[in-house]
């Protein structure tokens, strides 16, 4: 299923689909992971990184599902090895579903990561964990309304007691098998930026690998994030592709300003 640079497979497990768990630190990802997989777990390190990760599997509604537990991160900006692993797996591991575990006691903080994930992929589910703690604090959360506003399924859980885990499996199943087609509302960044994004997206059209959102890529390039270019190069190498994000079109069609994108362009040009 998924090989190469971002392995998700488990030896001897013939998976129907792969779901990945992302989330802020300490939101209960590993507890959800344990509740989903029971004892069917494997731990190890990411190739070439000191970041530990766990993989496991379960069966639900006749399907075998591989689950990957990512390190806790506040964002996918690749500021740390943990963030980089999380971003690279969500982007290039091409999981069938990305589950964002959010802390119901401080939801607002957690939505930053949710929105970042939704820029990469619409195939996502929010797991609103620590619901018991939120209730103890007297907080009332309207999961349906949140699902409406985000455009993706939201499942309330209290993972340490198993509450909501079956519903979570149902939602993961439905999104993985396209029984539900999430339609997240894109975050917009104002006229000026949107014009630049559009222009970049058009130039990226003929260059980019399948499954990676061109809008997301355009935004990262405008942010001047060279690590994303490096990640794509690695991905293409691992997949045995000759080409990379190095089309002459990129530099011809779009001339980055002084700061934005300059680093990325340099990285692209610097490619052997």
């Amino acid at each position, binding site marked *: 299923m998924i090989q190469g640079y971002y392995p998700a497979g488990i030896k001897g497990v013939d998976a129907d689909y792969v779901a990945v768990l992302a989330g802020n*630190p300490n939101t209960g990802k590993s507890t959800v992971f344990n509740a989903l997989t029971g004892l069917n777990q494997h731990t190890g390190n990411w190739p070439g990184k000191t970041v530990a990760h766990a993989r496991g599997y379960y069966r639900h509604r006749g399907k075998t599902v591989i689950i990957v537990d990512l390190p806790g991160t506040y964002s996918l*900006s690749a*500021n740390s090895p943990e963030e980089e692993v999380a971003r690279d797996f969500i982007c290039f591991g091409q999981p069938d579903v990305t589950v964002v575990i959010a802390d119901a*006691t*401080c939801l607002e*903080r957690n939505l*930053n990561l949710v929105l970042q994930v939704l820029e990469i992929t619409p195939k996502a589910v929010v797991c609103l964990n620590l619901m018991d703690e939120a209730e103890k604090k007297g907080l009332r959360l309207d999961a349906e309304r949140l699902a409406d506003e985000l455009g993706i399924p939201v499942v309330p859980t209290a993972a340490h007691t198993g509450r909501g885990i079956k519903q979570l499996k149902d939602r993961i199943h439905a999104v993985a098998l396209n029984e539900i087609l999430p339609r997240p509302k894109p975050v917009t960044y104002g006229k000026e930026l949107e014009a630049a994004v559009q222009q970049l997206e058009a130039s990226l059209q003929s260059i980019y690998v399948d499954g990676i959102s061109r809008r997301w890529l355009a935004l990262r390039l405008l942010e*001047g994030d060279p690590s994303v270019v490096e990640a794509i190069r690695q991905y293409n190498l691992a997949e045995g592709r000759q080409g990379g994000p190095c089309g002459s079109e990129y530099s011809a069609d779009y001339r980055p300003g002084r*700061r934005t994108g300059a680093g990325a362009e340099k990285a692209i040009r610097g490619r052997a």
Partner: protein
Amino acid sequence: MTAGRSLADLPVGAASIVMELRAVGSTRRRLLDLGFVPDTAVEAVRRSPMGDPTAYQIRGAVIALRKEDADAVLVRPI
């Protein structure tokens, strides 16, 4: 335009409101990702014995910032 104080000068135990970020590029992005968004309440909860870094309670989490990053966060009184 109000002149803000730097978050780094906030005494432990005191609270304030984030007003603006005097940072660009990846530092700005990182501060925003950590929750240092304008109009957010922030409290200094602990300072390391060496005086740096300081732990801040913000948006339901405790986040440690080095002085040079906290300097870039302008705050106003609540």
